[in-house]
């Protein structure tokens, strides 16, 4: 039996299919104007790559922003919050993981799982964009670099500058100020990543960080944020064995198997 998960986030959408305890395929796209369209597109693309039809999937769970609409449109049988899905997906991949730091486009979450793979506790950022992927995006635009460069450029920093504020708007002003003073972009990039990590670490401390720890979501691909988080929290992150962006959709597919009743 095949099970599917669809995760429509604020910037990207993913679909995953699992069968016999293995990932059969996954797909990630940039979001379309509405979540239902994103879900339709990403699932459609994945299914055609796998040569499958919608009815070949026994049970589908939707997650992420718009999960309810996706289910209401008949694309999924049930919906589960992205908090549970990221937790379940991470533990399925890495059974020893107890803490998941998930940083997406507009959300940052720290998820605690117990030994039996159940959600134990979580925190999620409030409406403010600081400490989310959106913050990095805005900073990259100001610095005139890509998101990928932000991580790599950081490694070349010699004298990271101090960014006093964790607010995206204020930070942007500070970054501009350093640029005008001719500060090395690498030093600014390192500070941006550090500011980001500090913000997320503060969130993590609210629920406590229990090893093993891993990261999911788009920002997990930024090595500098990851190593800053390791330094601040004093932990080593277990690397995510798949694209960290598909963890939510994977968790949804794993839950689909549980809810759809594979015996």
């Amino acid at each position, binding site marked *: 039996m095949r099970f599917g998960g669809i995760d429509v986030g604020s910037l990207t959408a993913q679909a995953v299919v699992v069968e016999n305890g293995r990932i059969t395929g996954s797909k990630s796209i940039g979001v379309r104007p509405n979540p239902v369209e994103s879900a339709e597109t990403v699932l459609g693309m994945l299914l055609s790559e796998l040569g499958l039809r919608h009815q070949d999937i026994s049970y589908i769970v939707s997650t992420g*922003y718009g999960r309810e609409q996706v289910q209401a449109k008949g694309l999924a049988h049930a919906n*589960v*919050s992205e*908090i*549970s899905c990221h937790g379940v997906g991470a533990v399925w991949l890495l059974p020893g993981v107890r803490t998941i730091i998930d940083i997406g486009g507009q959300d940052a979450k720290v998820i605690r799982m117990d030994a039996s793979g159940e959600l*134990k506790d979580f925190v*999620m950022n*409030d*409406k403010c964009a600081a400490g989310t992927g959106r913050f990095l995006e805005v900073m990259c635009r100001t610095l005139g670099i890509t998101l990928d460069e932000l991580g790599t450029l950081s490694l070349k920093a010699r004298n990271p500058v101090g960014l006093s504020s964790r607010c995206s708007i204020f930070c942007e002003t500070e970054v501009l100020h350093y640029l005008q003073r001719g500060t090395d972009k690498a030093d600014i990039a390192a500070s941006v990543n550090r500011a980001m990590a500090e913000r997320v670490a503060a969130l993590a401390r609210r629920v406590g960080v229990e090893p093993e720890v891993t990261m999911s979501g788009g920002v997990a691909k930024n090595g500098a944020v990851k190593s800053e988080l390791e330094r601040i929290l004093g932990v080593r992150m277990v690397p995510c064995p798949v694209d960290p962006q598909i963890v939510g959709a994977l968790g949804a597919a794993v839950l689909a198997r549980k809810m759809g009743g594979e015996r």
Partner: protein
Amino acid sequence: MEDAIRLAGDILNSHLEEWRRAGGRIVGYTCVATPREIMDAAGILPYRIRALGKPERELADAYLSRFNCGFCRACLQLGLDGTYDFLDGLVENNGCDHLRGMFEDWQYAKDPAFFHYLRVPHTVSEEALEFFAEELELFREALGRHFQVDISDASLAEAMERSNRTREKLRELFSLREGERPALTGRQAMAVILLESSLPPAVFEDYLARFLEESERNEVRGYRARLLLAGSATDELALVGEIEDVGGLVVSDALCYGTRAFWNLPRLAGDPIHALAEAYLKHLLCPRMFDDYATRLDYVLRTARRARVDGAVLVHNKFCDLHGVENVRLRLDLEEAGIPVLVLEKEYGSGADLGRIRTRIQAFLERIGG
């Protein structure tokens, strides 16, 4: 019951308009430490100011900063934009500094004909009770002078009797809400409280009798978990609706727009001013009171157990220091007592926040196995 919710969703409802047409006066207050009975005895309608989650702030922002509680800013906005022009006066008190800022800016900008500052002590002691009783005397005098009424002990006793009756009925109704088969939703319960503090007391008594009758036959079904809602000044029917929409039935609360306004107030009897001072000060379950955390925790725990909740949601508005700090402590203590907790810090009345709130509630229900 749905009519009641609609009625509670209006700042100025039809009964108030009627009251005004008949020459009745209305005085606004905010904090539950204000003895409504003194106004009722003067024939004045005590109206508890609310913002009902309204998101506009632009006028208020000229006075209060963005680092003030959104509830207070929203109330001020309604004061400034004329929504509250139907009030004949305002009673300020020292609930918290945000609230004081709200009242004083309102007074400065609109200069209401009647404005009274009722000081409420932050501790309970013999001296504090004596002080508060004096404050209530001053309040009685100020009202009497301005509105030219004699507020006699006899009329106070009558108003107290009415309060006693109303509270008894409210407890009955809320017991049906907390029961094995909840008779009303959290949204309906909040609407009842909003009506209690915005209708002529006699009119509310009639409504209450009807609610009780309806509720005896009613049963809410189809929820995933029973929740307790506690925290800061929460008058947002939409927020409770959102929680219940994802399956968390709010079977009880420890909110001042909820049970904290009436549940443990004793029967009022004896010398009116002293009885009121004692009842209102000794039973003020708000973190604005010093050294009283144990009593508040006890209240929340008792409520949670009585209503057999599966979890508790502790809300506070951004920048609300009082409840922000209290919720951290409460969370630790409730979790230790075996009650799972979700702390929800929110931007007051922000529709844009509802999606994330929904996600958190849903995840919380998944966590507690609802």
